[in-house]
């Protein structure tokens, strides 16, 4: 029996009242993941640049980690797009025949530029370490040592000069790259906001504030994720050291951490306030001008999506962590909870933009509900379901684990810039 072809979107779209026949939730969970992951990349890079460019010395520890972590996040920013495409084998076409009136056309170019900046900055920061490893592993027995040494030899790209002059140039190059990287990172993400903000057919998305809101929330989420991962990894290490009996060492690590975390949280709060202010401005403006679309927008925001927008995003994701972070006598546990909530809040913001923008019909006479596929029964329901999203979330941690084996971002003895 020939199976009836499945229309993309039918499986997770529930229509209510009058919706045009061809309307479905075409942009589902992976398009929520795309700006979320891109935002994490941009935010992680901005955090690392605070030290490299603006000389925030007390952020040094977390800055090096953030830089390497942003590299691990980078491929994952493109992954949701690949999972979302109906023709993934044609994914390179935007680079081959870019149609520049489209906001998506420049993605490959911006993304590649940014990737090159991150890669070269890491190279300049860790070049000395690579060279040292090549020398240290010389003559050591064993196949794994030989292979590791080969990897490091490739990583040096033949630049073995570690004299004072050469290292000074390295440091300068890393600073310049970090400085160039900030606008490029902001562009990478602001541009993701532009992809949505420029869709004039969508009443919720169309707003010139969208790119700026996206950048602010990107920095918020990036800083939060870096802080959270940093805390978890360092605590995990300290925990194991304590179990092995090295109490003093563990204590020292924790002491440094609290300073770093306090400083990073101050930046986090700053960007969080900016993000919320802009979002509120957008909301108030829409209500005040009350264009044709306001009736349906209001019914979605204050009615159908009230829980998602006002309870989960603004209250639980913004307001609660804001107070958790600013109230005195902050503990590490409270910070961890606040960071989790911040990350959740930014995710809900992406969700409410992407899914919320498709929650109402273009006819303004009906609604669509997104029922995310949980148990997949086809490739499509896997890719655009809970497990597809979890795969995207898990990948950067796996990549970081691999990259960190060669570029140890969490060790103090790998002195760089």
């Amino acid at each position: 029996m020939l199976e009836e072809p499945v229309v993309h979107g039918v499986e997770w779209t529930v229509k209510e009242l009058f919706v045009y026949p061809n309307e479905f939730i075409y942009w589902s969970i992976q398009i929520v993941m795309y700006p979320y992951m891109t935002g994490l990349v941009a935010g992680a890079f901005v955090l690392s640049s605070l030290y490299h460019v603006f000389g925030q010395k007390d952020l040094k520890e977390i800055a090096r980690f953030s830089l390497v972590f942003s590299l691990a996040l980078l491929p994952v920013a493109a992954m949701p797009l690949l999972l979302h495409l109906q023709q993934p084998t044609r994914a390179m076409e935007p680079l081959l025949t870019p149609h520049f009136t489209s906001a998506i056309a420049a993605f490959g170019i911006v993304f590649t530029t940014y990737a090159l900046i991150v890669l070269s900055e890491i190279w300049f920061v860790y070049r000395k370490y690579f060279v040292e490893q090549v020398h240290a592993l010389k003559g050591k027995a064993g196949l794994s040592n030989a292979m590791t040494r080969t990897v490091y030899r490739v990583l040096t790209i033949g630049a073995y000069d570690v004299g004072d002059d050469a290292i000074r140039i390295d440091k300068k190059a890393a600073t310049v790259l970090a400085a160039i990287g900030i606008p490029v990172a902001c562009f990478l993400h602001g541009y993701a906001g532009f992809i949505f903000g420029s869709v004039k057919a969508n009443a919720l998305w169309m707003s010139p504030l969208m790119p700026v809101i996206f950048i602010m929330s990107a920095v918020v989420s990036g800083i939060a994720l870096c802080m959270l991962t940093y805390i978890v990894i360092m605590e995990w290490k300290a925990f194991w050291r304590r179990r092995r009996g090295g109490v003093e060492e563990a204590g020292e690590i924790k002491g440094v951490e609290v300073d770093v975390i306090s400083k990073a949280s101050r930046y986090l709060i700053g960007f969080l306030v900016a993000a919320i202010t802009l979002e509120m401005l957008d909301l108030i403006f829409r209500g005040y001008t009350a264009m044709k679309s306001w009736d349906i927008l209001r019914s979605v925001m204050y009615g159908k999506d009230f829980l998602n927008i006002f309870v989960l995003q603004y209250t639980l994701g913004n307001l609660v962590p804001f107070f958790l972070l600013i109230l005195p006598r902050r503990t590490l546990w409270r910070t961890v909870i606040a960071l989790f909530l911040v990350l959740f809040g930014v995710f809900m913001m992406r969700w409410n933009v992407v899914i919320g923008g498709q929650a109402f019909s273009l006819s303004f006479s009906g609604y669509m509900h997104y029922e995310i596929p949980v148990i997949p029964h086809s490739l499509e329901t896997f890719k655009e379901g809970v497990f597809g999203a979890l795969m995207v979330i898990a990948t950067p941690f796996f990549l970081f684990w691999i990259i960190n084996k060669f570029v140890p971002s969490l060790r103090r003895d790998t002195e760089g810039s």
Partner: protein
Amino acid sequence: MTCSRRDFLKNTVGSSLVSALPLSAFTLISSAEAAAALDEAKVRWAFLVDTTACVGCGMCVKACKNENEIPYDAPVTRTWVERYVMTKDGKTHIDSPLGGRDGFIDDKIRDEEIDPADIDKAFFVPKLCNQCENPACVQVCPVGATYQTNDGVVLIDREWCIGCGYCIMACPYGVRFFHPEAKVADKCNFCYHRISKGMDPACVESCAFGARRIANLEDPDDPVANIIRTERVAVLKDEYGTKPHVFYLGLDAGVR
């Protein structure tokens, strides 16, 4: 025969000039200019829908699905018919079951019984791609797989579409969808394969009531184009600046 160097140069320059003169009569022109010089450029396809003539039989949707190989039972369609019922309480009831493919044989709208005595007015509105002059879908396609022809129709290259769905999001009229089999964006193209051979689109041919007609706006003798020029016609959602080219006779203000 002798030929001095001076004569040689003189003759070379002379003959070059003589041969270059006719060549200068040729000019490099763009493909659009070439097309403009030919008769085929004297076409701007447009569409006229007479909502007062439509009875909602759904024959146009059936014909379109068959002609354009859109899976018959799939809930997507290149053209569809909407039913509007406006009641005395100020409410507008709209539906389009299966795009109106099987006609509107049920009085109920989404299981809601409407008392005929409560109805102020009721009518049908056929919808299809507006072949906009300033198409948002073409603007946002990242690879140029959807494009506008010289005669105003927006087409999709199925071999080049990456299936990102940006065009679907950008269209204010909701005419686009993913083709369930081709897995690329799809929409009405006025049956381009037919109209470019002098035939009518499938929906026009199948409409027994003359509610759907195709027009060439560039042809001063085209009777349908003359109706668009001389009668009071309206378009859908002109606030988006897309300059739609499906014109409606008797379009109600309540139509979405």
